C-alpha cells in the first residue's frame, strides 16, 4: 500500500470536511443557503440521536466504517479532531525540533471509560446534556458559533463600514458571558492539550472517541508492527499524535489510534503496516500468525459491551420513556418550532447551536436557567431583539439531531411554541388613553384584533388564544414599560393553533372616486 497517498488523501478530505461543517455556523453563508447544514447530519452523535428520524443510515454507515477501518471518523469527519491536528501542526512551528517529538503515553483507561460509562448511562436514562457538553461535534458547533461566528460578524461589519451601500451592517447578536466562556475555555483546553499531547482529549475525555475506540479493537484493518522489519528507530512513535505506539512491547493501542496513517507514512523500513486481521476464538497463540495479527476474544468482548451499550441507548430512545431524574422546568423557556416539548427537546438537543447560527432574526440564544438546570445552555427563544418570522422555518431545517423536527411551513405556522398572556392594565390604550395597535399590526394570525374601548373612539386589543402561535411579534413591539401588556409564556408541550379563518369579503364594484 502506498501510505503516502493514503495520508495525503486523509488530510485533504479532513480539511474539506472541517470547512463544510463550519460553514453552516457562518451567518453570511446561512443567509444564502441551508445546503451546508445537511453535512452536519454526517456527525456521529447527531446521527445516533436522530436514529429514528432519518439518521439511521448515516449511523450504520459510520459504525460500518469503524468496524472496517478503525477510528477513521476521528481523523476525517470529526471537526474537533481535525482542528486538534491543525493545532498540533501549527504548534510545531513554534517548537524546537526535539520538542516536536511525541512519546508513547500510557492510556488513562479508568478516567476514559468512567466518562464514557457515565455519559452513556445518563443518555440511556434520557439525559443528553453531559453528552452534549462532551460531544466533539456539539463543542465544535459552539466554538464555531461563539468564536468563529463572532470573528466573522466583526469582519462583516468592518466591510460594512468600508462599503456602506453594498454590505449591510449586522446590528446585534445575543452575547451571554457564560455561553461564550464555555466554548472559549473548552477551545483553550483543547488547544493546550493538542499542542502538547496531540489527541489526548480524544483518547481521554471524548465519549465518541472512547466508544469508537472500543469498537475499533475488532476492526478488520488495523495498524500492525512487523517485528522482523522494525529496527525500533522510533520514527513512528515520534509522529504518533495519539501516543499509542508502544515499541517496547511492539504493539499499537488501536483503541486510541485515530487511523491517521502518519506512522505508516514515515516508517522507512515499511514495518508499520495496515493489515487485515484474523479473528481467533482462543486466547492462545496456536495460529502460525504473529500474535499482533490476531483479534482475541477479550477485545471482542469489550467491543461487544460498547455496541451493547449503544444498542441499549437506541432501544431506550425508541421507548420514549420518561426521564427518571429531572429538575423541575420553570416553563419560562420557549423552545424553537419542531421541538415538540421541553422534555423531548432536552432529550435530543446537544446544544450545537446550528439553529442559533441559522436564525435569520437572531432570536435563538443559549439558555441560562430558563429550562431549569438540566437545560443549561440549550437554545431558547428570546424576543427582545426580534420575533419568530411567520414564513421562516430555517431552525427546523438545520437541526442535525432532529431535536427540532423538520416541519412544513404550513405546520410551522400552526405550531404553538408559546402562548401570549395579555395584561390589559399594562396596555397603552388603557394607561394613557391613546391609540397604539402595535401588537395587532404585527400579529400574523390575527389572534390579536382591535375592538372599541369603552365609549371612547379608541380601540384596544382582544386576544383569541386559539389562534396564537407564540411567535413573539406582539411581545417584541409592545411599547408598554416597565411591564409589557403582551408577554409570551412557554408551553411544556407545543400546541396546535386553529387555522386562521379566511374572511371572504362581499364583492363591491366601485365606479366612483368617493369624493
Amino acid at each position, binding site marked *: 500500500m502506498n501510505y503516502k497517498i493514503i495520508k495525503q488523501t486523509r488530510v485533504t478530505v479532513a480539511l474539506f470536511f472541517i470547512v463544510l461543517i463550519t460553514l453552516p455556523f457562518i451567518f453570511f453563508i446561512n*443567509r444564502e443557503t441551508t445546503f451546508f447544514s445537511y453535512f452536519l447530519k454526517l456527525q456521529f452523535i447527531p446521527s445516533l440521536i436522530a436514529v429514528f428520524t432519518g439518521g439511521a443510515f448515516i449511523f450504520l454507515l459510520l459504525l460500518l466504517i469503524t468496524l472496517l477501518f478503525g477510528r477513521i471518523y476521528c481523523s476525517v469527519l470529526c471537526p474537533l479532531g481535525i482542528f486538534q491536528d491543525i493545532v498540533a501542526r501549527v504548534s510545531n512551528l513554534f517548537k524546537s525540533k526535539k520538542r516536536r517529538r511525541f512519546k508513547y503515553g500510557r492510556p488513562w483507561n479508568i478516567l476514559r471509560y468512567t466518562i464514557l460509562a457515565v455519559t452513556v448511562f445518563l443518555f440511556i436514562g434520557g439525559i443528553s446534556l453531559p453528552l452534549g457538553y462532551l460531544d466533539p461535534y456539539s463543542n465544535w458547533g459552539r466554538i464555531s458559533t461563539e468564536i468563529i461566528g463572532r470573528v466573522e460578524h466583526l469582519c462583516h461589519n468592518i466591510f460594512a463600514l468600508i462599503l*456602506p*451601500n453594498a454590505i*449591510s*451592517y449586522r*446590528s446585534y447578536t445575543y452575547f451571554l458571558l457564560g455561553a461564550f466562556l464555555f466554548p472559549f475555555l473548552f477551545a483553550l483546553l483543547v488547544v493546550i492539550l493538542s499542542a502538547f499531547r496531540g489527541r489526548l482529549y480524544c483518547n481521554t475525555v471524548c465519549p465518541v472517541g472512547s466508544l469508537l475506540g472500543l469498537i475499533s479493537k475488532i476492526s478488520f484493518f488495523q495498524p500492525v508492527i512487523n517485528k522482523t522489519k522494525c529496527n525500533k528507530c522510533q520514527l513512528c512513535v515520534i509522529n504518533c499524535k495519539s501516543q499509542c505506539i508502544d515499541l517496547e512491547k511492539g504493539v499499537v493501542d488501536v483503541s486510541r489510534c485515530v487511523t491517521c496513517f502518519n506512522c505508516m507514512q514515515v516508517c522507512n523500513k515499511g514495518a508499520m503496516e495496515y493489515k487485515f486481521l484474523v479473528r481467533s476464538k482462543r486466547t492462545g497463540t496456536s495460529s502460525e500468525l504473529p500474535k499482533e495479527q490476531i483479534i482475541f476474544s477479550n477485545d471482542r468482548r469489550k467491543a461487544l459491551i460498547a455496541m451493547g451499550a449503544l444498542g441499549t441507548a437506541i432501544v431506550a430512545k425508541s421507548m420514549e420513556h420518561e426521564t427518571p431524574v429531572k429538575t423541575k422546568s420553570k416553563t419560562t423557556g420557549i423552545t424553537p418550532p419542531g421541538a415538540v416539548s421541553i422534555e423531548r427537546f432536552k432529550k435530543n438537543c446537544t446544544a450545537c447551536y446550528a439553529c442559533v447560527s441559522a436564525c*435569520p*432574526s437572531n432570536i435563538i440564544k443559549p439558555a441560562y436557567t430558563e429550562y431549569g438546570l438540566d437545560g443549561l445552555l440549550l437554545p431558547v427563544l428570546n424576543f427582545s431583539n*426580534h420575533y419568530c*418570522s*411567520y*414564513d*421562516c422555518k430555517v431552525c427546523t431545517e438545520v437541526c442535525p439531531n432532529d431535536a427540532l423536527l423538520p416541519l412544513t411551513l404550513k405546520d410551522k405556522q400552526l405550531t404553538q411554541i408559546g402562548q401570549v398572556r395579555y395584561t390589559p392594565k399594562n396596555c*397603552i390604550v388603557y394607561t*394613557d388613553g*391613546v*391609540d*397604539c*395597535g*402595535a401588537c*395587532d*399590526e*404585527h*400579529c*400574523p*394570525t*390575527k389572534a*390579536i*384584533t*382591535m375592538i372599541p374601548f369603552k365609549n371612547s*373612539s379608541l*380601540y384596544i*386589543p382582544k386576544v383569541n388564544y386559539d389562534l396564537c402561535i407564540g411567535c413573539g411579534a406582539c411581545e417584541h*413591539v409592545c*411599547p*408598554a*414599560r416597565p411591564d409589557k401588556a403582551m408577554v409570551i409564556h412557554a408551553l411544556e408541550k407545543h400546541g396546535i393553533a386553529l387555522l*386562521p379563518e*379566511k*374572511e*371572504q*369579503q362581499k364583492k*363591491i364594484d*366601485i365606479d*366612483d*372616486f*368617493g*369624493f
Partner: protein
Amino acid sequence: MKRRQFIKSAFLGALTGALELKAGNLFAKSGETNVEDNDLVAVMGGEPAQMYKRAIEAMGGIKRYVKTGNKVVVKPNIGWDKRPEFGANTNPELVSAIIKDCLAAGASEVVVFDYTCDEWRSCYKNSGIEDAVKAAGGNIAFAHDEKYYKSVSLPKGTRLKEVKIHEAIINCDVWINVPILKTHGGTRMTISMKNYMGIIWDRIFWHANDLNQCIADCVTYGKKPVLNIIDAYRVMTQNGPRGKSVEDVRIAKALFISTDIVAADTAAVRFFNQFKEMRVEEVGHILIAERLGEGTTNLDNLRVKRIKIG
C-alpha cells in the same frame, strides 16, 4: 406576473425610457406650454405603471418635481415579508415606474428603502421591490440599524420635538412618498402620513406616546415629500396593515397623487369609504396634521383632476 416576465417588461420599460429621453433631445420641447397644473389627481381603472403615467402628466410631469442631477429617494411601504398579491407592501410595478421616470428626468440616483417590521432582507426580497428597484436602475438602501438614522429637531411638533430620520432622506434633494392604502388597528388607516414611520427609528416611542400625534408631528419635518403617490391598486380593507390572506385585499385599481399630504390621505380615505365605512375624522393623524397646517381635508378648495381609464 412571473419574475422573468416582470424583469423583461421592466427592461423593455427602461429601454423605452431611454429612447424617450433621446427623442426629447432631438425634437423641440413643445409640451412645456400646456403643462397641466393640479393639486390632486385621482386615477382608476388601469395598471399601476399606466395609472402613474396619466397621474404624473396631470400633475405637470415629473420634471416639475425632480430636477437634473437631483438625488431622489422613493419611499414605498416594504414593511412586511409578503408577496405583492397580499397587498401589504407598495406595488413593485409602481415603484419601478416612478424610479424610471425620475431617472429619465435626469435624477443622478434614486434610492429606495423602508424600515421594515418583519426581518428586513425577507421583506426587501419577497415584496418584489428589491428586484424591481435594481431592474429599474435604482439603489436599495439599508434601514435596519440605528446607525443609518440621524437626529433632527421638529420645532412645530407638539409631542415629538426631535426624531431620528434615515440619512437617505436627510441627504437627498427630493423625496417621493409612495404608500399603499390599508387599514390599521391603531390609527384606523395607514396611508401617506403613516408611511413616515418607515423613515424614522424609534417607532416604539411613538406607540407609547400618542401615535396619531407623533405621526402628525413628524409630518411637520421641514423636508417634505415633493409628491405623495398612493398605491390603491390592491387595497387591504380588513386585518391591516399586515393582513393574513389574499381575502383581505380588494383589487381597486386606483392611484392618488398630490403635493398636499393631508389632501392625498383624505382622498384615499374617501375612496376607501366606498368599500368599507371609514370617515376621515376617524383617522386621528389626518385631522391633527391639518390643524398643524400641513394641508387641507377640504378637497373642494383644490384643483382636483379625476381620470378613469378603460
